[in-house]
């Protein structure tokens, strides 16, 4: 198994390198004078220009710039923001907030999605199933920010159950509403995935055999249908953490959560390249690590898969 993890890690290296190169090129390989763009209409002082050029290795060929960036990143130096703060520090402050938010969303969506999908699958074609089908389709079709605003309006403004914006205090209680909004779309996907999987498993041969043994519906459903239906759901959940963190751009904006999404959004708007590249790199790393975690979870759930 360690060989397998090692091999997967090796395979991940070109993906991480490629993704950072791609995003680095998008951000830094632009025509025109980036320093001039930074200063806008103001005249640029030559000493300042030289110091900025040195800091960003702007006088080197592009690939060298990228390699130097990578080299620095490996030592934990991700460059500086325009406000001369280390990027690593800014991200370090924001990351735990978003991680907390995304994990909360992940828990909420998976518990509710699996429960609703399982029940809908068992009662295929009945009222609950149809209702859930419509609910899930609506959730996917309506943009998430519309739900965000509606929930903010109803639970924050009208009912006053939750703070309208989170601001500096990112406690679990305050993050509850944003987490629900963030997890909504994935909830719908998990529901549909679980339902399809349950419906498929209900007609599986081994389920019929379990019934023929004299097992009650209850044990058949919990021991044979549910567990077997979890395999595609787990795969989805693994890839979902990264998606949730990226989706936080919208949710964090609406609820003013001081997380990665907000940071990324501001950095993109300001053209703060070092921050943007670092955040995307972080996201890619999360994706790569989660893919590996999913593979290992898969092997744990399904004994047929053994990574030799």
């Amino acid at each position, binding site marked *: 198994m360690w060989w397998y993890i090692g091999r997967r890690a090796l395979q991940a290296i070109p993906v991480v390198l490629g993704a950072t190169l791609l995003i680095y090129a998008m951000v830094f390989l632009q025509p025109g004078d980036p320093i001039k763009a930074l200063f806008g209409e103001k005249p640029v002082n030559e000493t300042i220009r030289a110091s900025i050029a040195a800091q960003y290795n702007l006088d080197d060929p592009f690939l060298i710039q990228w390699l130097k960036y990578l080299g620095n990143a490996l030592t934990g130096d991700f460059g500086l923001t325009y406000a001369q703060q280390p990027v690593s520090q800014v991200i370090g402050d924001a990351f735990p907030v978003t991680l907390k938010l995304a994990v909360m969303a992940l828990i909420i969506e998976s518990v509710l999605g699996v429960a609703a999908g399982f029940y809908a699958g068992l009662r295929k074609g009945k009222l609950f199933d149809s209702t859930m089908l419509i609910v899930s389709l609506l959730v996917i079709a309506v943009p998430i920010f519309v739900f965000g605003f509606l929930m903010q309006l109803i639970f924050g403004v009208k009912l006053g159950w939750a703070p309208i914006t989170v601001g500096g205090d990112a406690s679990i209680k305050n993050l509850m509403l944003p987490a629900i909004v963030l997890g909504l779309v994935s909830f719908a996907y998990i529901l549909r995935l679980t339902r399809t999987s349950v419906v498929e498993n209900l007609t599986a041969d081994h389920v019929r055999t379990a019934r023929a043994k004299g097992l009650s519906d209850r044990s058949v459903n919990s021991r044979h249908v549910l567990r077997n239906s979890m395999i595609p759901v787990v795969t989805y959940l693994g890839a979902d953490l990264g998606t949730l963190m990226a989706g936080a751009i919208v949710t964090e904006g609406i609820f003013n959560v001081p997380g990665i999404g907000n940071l990324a959004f501001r950095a*993109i708007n300001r053209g703060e390249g070092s921050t943007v590249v670092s955040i995307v790199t972080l996201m890619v790393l999360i994706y790569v690590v989660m893919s590996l975690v999913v593979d290992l979870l898969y092997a744990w759930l399904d004994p047929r898969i053994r990574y030799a």
Partner: protein
Amino acid sequence: MPETTPLPGQERFLAPLDETPLQETGALDTSSPPESQWKEAWKELRRNWLFWVSGAMILLVAVVVIAPGLFTNLDPSYADLSKSLDPGSSGHIAGYDKQGYDVFARMIYGARASVLVGVLTTILIVVVGLITGAVAGFYGGWVDSVISRIADIFFAIPLLLGALVGLSVINNLFPDRGEFGGIVAVVIALGVFGWPQITRITRGQVLQVKNMEFIDAARAIGATKRSNLLRHVIPNSLPPVIVTATVSLGILIVAEATLSFLGIGLPPGVVSWGNDINAAQNQIRSGQRIGVMFWPAGALAFTALGFILLGDAVSDALNPKRRTE
């Protein structure tokens, strides 16, 4: 096996021949006209109410896109600041927004940009994804490794984040790109990070199809690899790609709105649902005139829902296993 007298109920029994006639084995059922798999799927589709509902929704949207003038004779780019946030009157059922634009007229004219982005992006990702996925799955080896790793690179960057960065770059390079240029920019930004999904689906399907016996039969005839790929493998790999493409269309429309909502999608001058929702967020925050957001958001959800429902119906029609239950 000793010969014994049979027990009651187990005596020799022969069914009357006239009640159990022998049927010709291998007779051809000619009761219905010939049907290809596509035709059969189409028949199945027509039987599904989901198809008719979603089809009607998409048709309505299509008419709005092609001929917005049929639905309103107001100018979506005419603003009357004195009517700011006016709840509306006869002829103005949806009222006015903050700038004094007619909300309903903007909803009608906003369809074009949103739908265009969805359709063009879907075409882009299907073309790129189908070709790369089919080549990777069919030829295997190092070709597969290279394509799969490149797809991984683009897949590893979250769609929304990647598109945001991409658009901000395009904004810098071409600040004044007009309405169509704006649409093309969003299509490229979404397409660049959207194709790997289709690649993966196509590749998986091709891997299954290429091992089927009819592929071996074609090889034994002497058909070349390329003709095998084009004539047998790709056509038989299409069903899941079609389903994903249909659903993607709806999801991409939502993604475009999200980008516009973040203020970085279509240029502000373009009449689009995303831009209008973006403009309306202050009204929601302050709780005044929710309707300003309701109309464009509702139209957007309606359109996306249409495509997602159609995807469901197509999936049922193309997947005989799920159908029989």
